């Protein structure tokens, strides 16, 4: 699976005086890594345009760190190639690659102070203007006053910024960030996300950000690649991935989805008709990610906030059929929204999120309701795929 992504390349051409930058981006071709008998990364293809903020999203153990380490040169690929612009760097030594890493645990040098930590890369390359460069970089991450402290004397968030500064100062062609925010609390995490995004826009470098936090990936990145068990499941702009997932894993891992069993009835122009538990629903064919021959089994997917509920017999603002016979089985009032579980006649519980606009009363547990949605929001997935892939509830029957 190889997709070239057209990402906004705001600062891509911005060379910042280093010279020789091709602006060709980072390309991985059938990159594979095997540890003994275990394949951590399976024939990965990725194209990351230069200047973009690229997020690699996936559950723990899916091979994200291994991929980054191969790009950084800290792990040798079993097969495949890595090219940066026109240059094949697959076998290049790590210290020769124009790539720097912000490590998962920061890996700051404990015996050097903050200034020397940040200056490390420049000194190794015998740069002459070390002092002003380091001071400027420390100012960027707002740590000027901490220059003479040791890493152990800083807070977690400050250490994280030192790690960022230490890598950024080298003006690498690609900056790799391996879950740099993993150890921070939620509030600090939010502000660091904004900070990193701001810095990326400012310096215009290519950032490859690894995370297993889908919200982080979606808020920060231009392009998100969802990785699972060593392969990329889907890649694209965050909204595109969220609105039109291609696999059950992506549908469940990025936000939540209702996946309802159905059978394809046939195509009618641009839409696919599906017999879903006795009700015929339509799905735009651009959102149907399977063979749409009649009789094919499928999952009809719909996001909880796209599901509309109404009192029995009430008109719902959605074209097409509404599905009768739902009974509210659970109500959780969250404040901005209310989350309902609606038990459908075929036994499945659908999740429904409704904004608290105040225009209508809350439903109570046990009430009967009708359910519907606008066909443009539904998506259709292959029934071969596990409906619980990518959920934390994979132990429950779907």
């Amino acid at each position, binding site marked *: 699976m190889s997709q070239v992504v057209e990402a906004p390349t705001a600062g891509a051409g911005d060379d910042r005086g280093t010279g020789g930058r091709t602006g060709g981006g980072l390309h991985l071709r059938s990159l594979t890594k095997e540890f003994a008998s275990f394949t951590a990364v399976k024939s990965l293809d990725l194209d990351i345009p230069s200047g973009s903020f690229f997020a690699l999203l996936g559950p723990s153990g899916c091979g994200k760190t291994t991929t980054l380490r191969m790009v*950084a040169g800290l792990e040798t690929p079993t097969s495949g190639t890595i090219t940066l612009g026109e240059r094949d760097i697959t076998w290049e030594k790590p*210290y020769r690659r124009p790539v*720097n*890493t912000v490590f998962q*645990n920061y*890996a700051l040098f404990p015996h050097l102070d903050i200034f020397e930590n940040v200056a490390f890369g420049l000194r*190794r390359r015998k740069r002459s203007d070390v002092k002003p460069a380091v001071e400027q970089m420390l100012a960027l991450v707002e740590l000027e006053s901490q220059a003479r402290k040791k890493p152990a004397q800083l807070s977690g968030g400050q250490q994280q910024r030192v790690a960022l500064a230490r*890598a950024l100062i080298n003006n690498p062609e690609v900056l790799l960030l391996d879950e740099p925010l993993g150890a921070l609390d939620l509030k600090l995490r939010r502000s660091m996300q904004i900070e990193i995004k701001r810095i990326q826009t400012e310096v215009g470098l290519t950032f490859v950000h690894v995370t297993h936090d889908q919200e982080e990936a979606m808020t920060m990145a231009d392009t998100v690649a969802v990785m699972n068990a060593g392969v990329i499941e889907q890649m694209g702009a965050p909204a595109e991935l969220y609105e039109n997932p291609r696999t059950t894993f992506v549908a469940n891992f990025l936000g939540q989805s209702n996946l309802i069993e159905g059978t394809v009835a046939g195509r009618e122009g641009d839409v696919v008709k599906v017999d879903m538990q006795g009700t015929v629903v339509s799905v735009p064919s651009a959102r149907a990610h399977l063979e749409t021959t009649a009789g094919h089994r499928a999952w009809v997917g719909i996001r909880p906030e796209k599901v509309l509920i109404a009192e029995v017999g009430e008109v719902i603002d959605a074209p097409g059929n509404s599905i009768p016979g739902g009974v509210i089985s659970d109500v959780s009032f969250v404040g901005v929204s209310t989350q309902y579980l609606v038990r459908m006649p075929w036994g499945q519980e659908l999740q429904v999120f409704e904004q608290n606009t105040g225009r209508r009363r809350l439903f109570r547990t046990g009430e009967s309701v009708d359910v519907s949605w606008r066909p443009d929001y539904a998506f259709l997935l292959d029934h071969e795929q596990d409906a619980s892939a990518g959920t934390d509830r994979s132990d429950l029957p779907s």
Partner: protein
Amino acid sequence: MTATATRPAGSSAPTPEPAPPAKRPRRNLTGYWLLLPGALWLAVFFVVPFYSLLATSLYDPGGSVLEGYDMSWAFGNYVTAIQEYWRPLVRSLWYGAVATAICLVLGYVLAYAIAFKAGRWKNLMLILVIAPFFTSFLVRTLSWKLLLRDDGFVVDTLQFLHVLGADGRLLATPVAVIAGLVYNFLPFMVLPLYASIDKIDPRLVEAAGDLYARPFVGFFKVTWPLSLPGVVSGTLLTFIPAVGDYINAQLLGSPGQRMIGNVIQNLFTDAGDYPVAGALSVMLMLLILVLVLVYVRRAGTEELL
């Protein structure tokens, strides 16, 4: 009375560190109670014997073991000791320094390999490092005497390779004594080095590589400075007992390789010259103390984490 003082200063354990300058809690008395057993032990077995050693070194040299000695504040003992025995004293420091340097090189490579490369053989290799302690120091040194003997395979091989002349030998040479010292004290170097190197996060070395440091540069900028605490304690644990050692020089050397420990032992047990032996012991102790202080200062270990 002098039983405990017959040992050369360095070879009895606690010389350089009478109670480490631990950060004691201010109000809380627990710390003092915990110090008590160690402090008592040191008072009985270090301070008292040291006082008696100091006293011995100032006895009237005219006395003898049989007649007894008078306390006459005879500082002249120190002058005599230096005049007569400065050669073995300097030789001891020299042998100790060379042996320590060799131990450091061999020990660092070994400790590094155990810490970073041994994988599942780590524990086995550590046990092998301390395995020599399962037999006595004396027995091990005697077996080196067999190993290096004139018609032994080591000498034969070296003669065959023309490293040694046809009638060249190893026993009774500085090489044999230093080799013995290196062999006997290597574990004291390896263990602290290993403890230090093993604590180094390999990801720091990777980070150095990621930041354009070649492996060689990465070693000197990251691994070496982080292992300095082990280097300092390892060299001290090797140098101090090596300088005071007399077994190796006695079994593997000749009078030409006499170290200060041999002189002191000889003066105490054979010549019965207690005052000069005492003076030499005190001098050796102070000398090592000064060297250690200067060294620790220079190494700048207080700056390390």
